[in-house]
């Protein structure tokens, strides 16, 4: 089981690397988000015919994951821009374009498909939960490393 999980993790990492997520920590964050989205979709979609909340939650998670993947892919190249103004313009144009696209999708979900707003918001919050868990795990890891190497004192 552990080997299967490791193989899946390595396969996902390789796939993300081929897709342009070359920075290891960024790739880790994106991988976690992809796993969360897959788990949420697998858990919620069987109930999508029964419960509106289930597919609303899955839709929120999918929307924010796509947003984050797009942001992370572009974010790796931002600091490489020579001109600061060019970098800021590129980030802002992409941000507003993504926001408009997300707004259109959310409008369709809420108005046309009558998705429930609260599960949608909960789905959107998965990215924040992912970051917090990643940050806490990293902080705990660095503390353990400090204790083991005796650099804490």
């Amino acid at each position, binding site marked *: 089981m552990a080997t299967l999980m490791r193989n899946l993790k390595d396969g996902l990492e390789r796939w993300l690397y081929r897709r342009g997520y070359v*920075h290891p*920590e*960024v790739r880790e*964050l994106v991988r976690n988000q992809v796993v969360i989205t897959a788990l949420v979709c697998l858990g919620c979609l069987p109930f999508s015919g029964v419960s509106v909340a289930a597919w609303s939650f899955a839709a929120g998670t999918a*929307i*924010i994951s796509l*947003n*984050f993947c797009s*942001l*992370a892919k572009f*974010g*790796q190249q*931002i*600091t490489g*821009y020579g001109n*600061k103004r060019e*970098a*800021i313009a590129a*980030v*802002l144009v992409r*941000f*507003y374009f*993504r*926001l408009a696209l*997300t*707004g259109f999708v*959310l*409008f369709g979900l*809420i*108005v046309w498909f009558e998705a429930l*707003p609260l599960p*949608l*918001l909960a789905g*959107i*919050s998965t*990215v*924040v939960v992912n*970051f917090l868990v990643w*940050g806490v795990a990293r902080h705990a890891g660095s503390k353990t490393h400090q204790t083991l190497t005796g650099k804490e004192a």
Partner: protein
Amino acid sequence: MRKAFMTIFSTAALLTLASVAFAADTAGAMGAIGTISWATAIGMGLAAAGCGLGQGLGLKAACEGTARNPEAGGKITVTLILGLAFIESLAIYALVVCLILLFAHPFAKIITG
């Protein structure tokens, strides 16, 4: 420049007040809908502007940091992406709240009677 800003802001303020005055004359429900529409428009505008400002400032600081210390570029990039993602999720929260107010208002039945 200052004169142009003053003209733009006073025009915007007059237009806003005019809509409120017109809304007060109409029936209660229509007035409430008008107020909600204005509130969502202003709210989303402020949220988008604030988030854009935040992203721009964060990116500016990250570019300066990387230029000063290129070896720290990797760490700065991760922190920058986290910050940008947090800001972007804030903008999306604001967008959802505005859409709730406009199309899925929890007290819509009470307002419209």
